């Protein structure tokens, strides 16, 4: 008899036209809709606080900047002042929960609700969906890094110029050429090197000052001096080929 009464009461409860979700677990099972809960950490923990930065002005109301959505806004959650959010009225299934803030990246989480109402949250892995890495539920969404939308403009600096590979390639051999001979103390080797390395340098190389003067005064340099240089260049080219 008592049992009957209870059943009757339960039926009565069912008979009332609506079910309020989120009050107790039992009702969740009746309606088949569940509530996803979690907390979003504020993004200012990773955005540097500097005066005048555009992010900072709105940092006070990051709660309206953050959107928590599933399936492109089919379900949405809104963040309370303390960062808590809940998405109510979600049927069982597997969803990717996206927390989006225009300036900060939050990692999405896959939330799975089985038909019995068990929750499981794991990392999103599109390439290998079978691989499971669980994350704690209720969700804790932490900002991962600020979005870097912009390239930094190149600025001309003397250090850039000095440390550029071209300059280094020119400067280092020059240093070697000038410094190394002086470091060798043995006079014999010194002589050898002198004889070996720059045998006819003085004769072959046209003097820069002369070339300049001839160029600027419009006078043709003497053909004897000019001839060896292009010939040497040509042989060089041939070698490269």
């Amino acid at each position, binding site marked *: 008899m008592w049992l009957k009464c209870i059943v009757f009461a339960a039926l009565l409860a069912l008979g009332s036209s609506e079910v309020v979700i989120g009050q107790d677990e039992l009702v969740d099972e009746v309606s088949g809709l569940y509530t996803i809960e979690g907390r979003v950490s504020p993004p200012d923990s990773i955005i540097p606080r500097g005066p005048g930065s555009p992010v900072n002005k709105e940092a006070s109301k990051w709660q309206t900047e953050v959107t928590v959505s599933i399936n492109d806004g*089919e379900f949405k959650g809104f963040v309370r002042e303390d960062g808590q959010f809940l998405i109510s009225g979600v049927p069982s299934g597997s969803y990717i929960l996206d927390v989006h803030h225009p300036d900060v990246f939050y990692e999405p989480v896959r939330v799975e609700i089985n038909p019995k109402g068990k929750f499981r949250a794991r990392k999103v892995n599109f390439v290998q969906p079978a691989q499971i890495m669980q994350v704690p539920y209720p969700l804790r969404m932490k900002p991962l890094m600020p979005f870097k*939308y912009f390239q930094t403009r190149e600025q001309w600096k003397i250090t850039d110029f000095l440390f550029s590979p071209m300059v280094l390639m020119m400067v280092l051999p020059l240093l070697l050429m000038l410094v190394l001979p002086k470091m060798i103390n043995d006079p014999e080797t010194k002589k050898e090197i002198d004889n070996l390395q720059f045998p006819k340098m003085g004769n072959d190389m046209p003097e820069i000052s002369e070339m300049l003067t001839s160029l*600027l005064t419009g006078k043709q340099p003497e053909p004897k001096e000019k001839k060896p240089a292009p010939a040497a260049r040509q042989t060089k080219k041939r070698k490269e080929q």
Partner: protein
Amino acid sequence: MQAKGMLAGLSALLLLSTCSALYEDQIKKFDWRGVNVGALRQSRVDLNHFQPRILLSTNEGVVASVCVKTGEIVWRQVLEQKPRGDIKLLQVSGFSDDSSDTAAAPIGSNMGFDMLTVQGHAPALVRGWNTNMGALEWEWSTMPLNTERALDGLWFYSRSVLYHVVPTWKSHLEVTAYFASSGHSTGSTSKVMASWITPENCLLSGTYYICVDGKQLISLDLVSKSGQAFRTALEAEPKSKLQPLAGLNGVLIADGKLISVNKDQAVCSGLQSSSYAVGTFNYRKILAYADVASGILKINAVYLDNCSPVAELEQGVPFPEHFGTPSLNSFDCKLKRNGEGKGCLFLFSTSAESILAVQGGRIRWSREEALANVIDTQFVDLPLADTEGTLENEMKGKAVDFTSFERDIVSAFLRRITTQAVQIRSLFLHVIGLGPPPTATQRAGLVRDSFGLHKMLVVLTRSGKIFGIDNISGKHHWQLYLPNVKGFDNAEQMRLIIQRSAKHFPLQPLCTILAQDAANGNGVLYRFNPITGQASEGGLLQLDYKVKQLSLLGETENDFVKGILLLDASNKVHVYPQHATSLADGLYLYTADVKTSELTGYFVKYAGGQLSSTHIWNVRLGGHNSEQQIIGVAGKNPIEHVHSQGRVLGDRSVLYKYINPNLVAFVTQAPDATHKSILNLYLVDVVSGSVIFTMTHRKVRAPLSIVHSENWLAYSYFNEKVRRTEITTIELYEGKSQANSSVWSSLQAPPMPLVERQSYIIPTIVEALRETITERGITNKHVLIGTSSGSIVEMPWHLLDPRRPIASTTQGREEGAIPYIPELPLPTESHINYNQTIARLRNIYTAPSGLESTCLVVATGLDLFVTRVAPSKTFDLLKEDFDYILISIVLVALTSGSLIVKHLASRKLLKQAWK
């Protein structure tokens, strides 16, 4: 070896991904964003709050707070998509039908609320908001047991209790009461028998459920214990639909007159107006009403207790036509004894989806919320400056009359000299301030720039309002409103067509809108000048038939108008303007029925001054049980140029592209017993009706986005099996030889293409896809991917390329292809809208600019974002940070250095000579 290949691939990837990023100082330089909320549904003006504010809810499912002084958004919360985000009720605390409201509790406490919204029906979500910040305070939801009936459910609020009314038509009402802020039910659901209720005749006004029954009203007070229905007699049967009056319990508007069914609530029944609102002025309840008469918006008000007019509030405001018909949504006055009425702010919503604030006899601000529903955009070149115009005239003389020009070189020279003299004179006159006054468009700065980057953006919106927007500054130069037009029956939207571009100086450009008449369903054409926004060629043209298909013809010879070819419901063909009719001869047309998935091809013939259409082919894509429905159609952009005819392979041979301008992609979807859902792709030549290629995806469903250009196609869909969004790309090639390099003919059985295909995982939800387009097609094509988070990612085609080799082969590397990686990278540097996200991104439009490197982009959704992209960097422009100072210093230093050296050298020579 493999590592090396990988490295090469990675470095190429890095190179590609960084190629199109913005610099931080370019923010807002050539992009802007318009933030919208949507058409106003409910609003609450509150001038006496410590922080004056306007709280509103909109048809787009947005809750927002708007600044009273400027109309700018203070905060905005975009709710879920419909039907879940459909806002049923917005209730601000301290504002109820009953003045004795106890819900106002201190902010932050869980018991009271600041503002609450009720949205959706299954489940219905009730949310409490903090009105200062826009943050959520609490939330509860309820799931009706009968989802269908809950669709008609209504909500109302009375004395901190929220009531849910679910009607069962012709039978009864179910009323459930909840404590507003907790969601706890106050008791069981009560059933009120009411056999007279029907969906058309009933409404809820405050706590009263009122139905019209012939010449009488039957009303029920849902809060009272008795639940007794009572009848009120009417003078005449109401012709239009009844409307409730917000703010007064049990009062409704019938044919512009107020009727009260509440015995405690007297109304001034002598008034006649189109819209009413209730508020307080000088601590007395007043009723304000507003009407438009001959371009003036008249606002009047009466005291509710004695129906005497409030003289202070009476005002007339000049009302521009393009706002449509206004209706007073709400108002508020500053609490001041003997205030003179200047402190009152009236908030209007209009049929053109604008929000207007009227204060002190003028329109204080307006918001153009029609822009939340953009359905088509076009970029139109601006007119030439006057001086350039004369030059253009001269050049045109040359082009048209080439032979005479050649013959008469002296006269051409003379003309050149005279025009230059005229130019110099006008410049001089301009400098001393005596020149002719500039035209209106020139005064507004609407003059073509040298690179063609400054254009007029013509935007067509769903409400029938058209905007002319400056694409650089974002200024609205003109607005037009077409009442009584709507989109077509099969969810096909209105169309915006450029019939004549601005190239043909001195002829003015011409735009046309093709729409459907809201009243009789026939076609409507509206012709206007896109620079000034004024009607041209007679403006509105009512057609006497229903439009089925539309096509553009080539330019006519004498006035350079592209004719519009219309196929009507009885397969007759019409051309506008009439004199372009002969150009329609030999044209092929196709139609696609979305429901039955049937494609039909027509051939248009012009004989004896008459156009006729012949049905030539039929393709049924419906499948064996006709379940397949077309969910996507993608043709190529008609203004597209394909610059490169082929692709150089690793062995230096050329793979020729299959460029068929008549190729259209169709995507169909159908439910399936074993695979859940099947997606089919068909590539159809719409001239011959031959199916070039088909592909089937199993366990795949919408949302589908598709883009089709040159010889490739990319489409995104949701893969249900692995629960992720994927993009499939297809490239078509003719092979190593070209069948006919000069002319393409679909009728001469062109060879079937080689098809390359590949699928990629994209780690986001794709909302829109669009290819970049440039003037000559030399610049690389990138695909713009609109994501659900509201950002637009610029994806180089190299990454989507179906020829990306899976194994790292030498051939693939020599071809310049990156090894295949299943997941596409979405680097943040290639987000072209950085943190300016576009809420509910729906579509992206692209248009070429005058510069080959640059493509203009508009992204539409709830917000509007306009920018430009340079897929291969701006190779035809000097860099923005080009250092003019450095280069001039270097030049000066070099010249002066050489001079000095010359001097020194001569001195040295002299010295040497003296030695």
